[in-house]
């Protein structure tokens, strides 16, 4: 039941995106394409503008350039329309007090009902399914604040899923998760992506995780796209050295690309 609500493949095209905050040009001439149902990872050193890119795509930051979904200009779309297409999970979500997990996930249905009328009849089922797929049934009635870090990330994801978007934009979804939980979460996202044909655009700190899960990688440095393409094309030892100033060994095999830091000689 949870899946992209409207027809259309769901291809996101970003052309010439630029963001200026104050006097600083945070993003310049960023172009990328997210193919339908694919996972694109945005990587780059601190301050490269990864989060800003996602925020610009969701309409939180004023920008130059165009953002097209299946050829339709998203910037012109009404906020509700955009919310039905793009599901966004921020890096540090606000967790309201006194709200249960179910109520929180229910917020994801907001773009689908009139604010005055309140939730519609079918919403309950969609919410239940999102909770179920993210393994949150047992804690649906609990207060949001009582959840652990991993459970909270799942709750935010469930809320984004309840929006039935075509593209999931995730800002550092594995923040503060240990390796096991991070892996579990990313596996879950990948399964959802495959099952619903969702496209995923996520910023990822961890280069190996990016190399393992993404089909396409975009490397941002200083607000510009330094490289884009398949993981093995972008994640190279020299790229890591140039853009991160770090020394690493890169191994590519069937499961993806692994980037292993090596102490400088």
């Amino acid at each position, binding site marked *: 039941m949870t899946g992209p609500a409207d027809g259309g493949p769901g291809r996101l095209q970003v052309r010439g995106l630029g963001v200026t905050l104050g006097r600083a040009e945070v993003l310049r001439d960023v172009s990328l394409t997210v193919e339908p149902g694919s996972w694109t990872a945005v990587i780059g050193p601190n301050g490269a503008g990864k989060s800003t890119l996602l925020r610009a795509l969701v309409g939180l930051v004023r920008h130059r350039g165009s953002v097209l979904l299946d050829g339709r200009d998203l910037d012109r779309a009404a*906020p*509700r329309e955009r919310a039905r297409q793009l599901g966004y999970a*921020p890096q540090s979500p606000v967790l*309201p007090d*006194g709200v249960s997990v179910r109520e929180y996930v229910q*917020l994801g249905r907001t773009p689908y009902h009139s604010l005055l009328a*309140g939730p519609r009849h079918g919403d309950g089922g969609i919410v239940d399914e999102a909770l179920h797929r993210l393994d949150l049934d047992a804690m*649906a009635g609990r207060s949001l604040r009582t959840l652990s870090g991993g459970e909270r990330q799942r709750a935010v994801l469930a809320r984004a899923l309840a929006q039935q978007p075509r593209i999931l934009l995730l800002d550092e979804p594995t923040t503060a998760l240990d390796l096991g939980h991070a892996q579990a979460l990313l596996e879950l996202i990948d399964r959802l992506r495959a099952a619903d044909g969702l496209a995923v655009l996520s910023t990822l700190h961890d280069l190996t995780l990016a190399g393992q899960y993404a089909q396409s990688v975009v490397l941002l440095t200083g607000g510009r796209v330094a490289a884009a393409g398949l993981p093995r094309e972008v994640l190279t030892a020299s790229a890591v050295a140039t853009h991160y100033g770090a020394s690493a060994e890169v191994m590519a095999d069937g499961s993806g690309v692994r980037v292993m830091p090596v102490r400088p000689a």
Partner: protein
Amino acid sequence: MLAPGGRRRRGRALAVAGGALLAAALAGVAVGAVGLPFGGVVSSLLAHVGVHVGTPLPPVEDAILVQWRLPRVVLSALVGGVLALAGASYQGVFRNPLADPYLLGAAAGAGLGATVMIGWGPTQLGPLGTVPAAAFVGSLTGVGLAYALGSVASRQGGGSATLLLAGVAVSSFLTAGQSLAQQAHAEDLRQIYSWIMGQLGTAQWSDVVLVLPYMAVSVTVLLVSGPVLDVLAVGDDEAATLGVRPRRVRLVVLLAASLGTASAVAVSGLIGFVGLVVPHVVRRLAGASYRTVLPVSLVGGAAFLVLADLVARTALAPAELPIGVVTAFVGAPFFAALLRAGGGRAR
């Protein structure tokens, strides 16, 4: 928004609050400076709606009941309900549990308007009192100034933190103006303070009729804002990604809440603590979803003020306490207890 459990909880909370209001209203109508026999009160009220049962009160007592006590109870309920609802709405819009309906200069503006009118203006224009109108206009002006200042002051404009600061600035300025005006007319001090401390003692049906349209608009708009305030709880940014326009929502809710507050203040002076404490109690007892908090605050606030007014006019009967003092005496220690109990749960 509410799961089946939540809806049941809301229904229960509303029933409890409604029961409290009914009990408070009955007590308020039956008890007062003038002792009226309860049976007579009931008979008289029923007689007025055409049901003849028992012995109604004699004409003078009946007039007291219907012309003075009943409108007073009704006005207390209206004012208390609107202030609590406005307070809850402000708390939702600012995501701040310490917000109250006077936050953006509604009280300071009303105080200044009333003081200026008492000091310099004619307090009666024919049969109409001018002070309520001056307070109403002053109240809305105060909020308007705060909103304008908040919008101009920051690039994002209308962000809640900026608005809050603008409200502080405007309130301080208007309060200073009021103090100045008070000093210029020190002989009117008692009248001014009497107004500031809140009073429902002169409530008549004409007052009820006067404020009803504004309160009706305010209450209607606010009651339907529950779902959107729940969305705003996740912050402006995330709310925007869910399809909501935070600034527009904030403007509409603030306008409606300020309209209600201004009309309440116009007829009853400045009654504090209702808008702050009642929503907290409701949240504690019935959950934090605004779809519940708003309507239950409306009914609970009405009950609270009817009871407070009852205490104000019976504690030293036949003399009356200023109602602002009663709500403060009840509200302040209550609030302190709330903070102590909820300290660990604070944001």
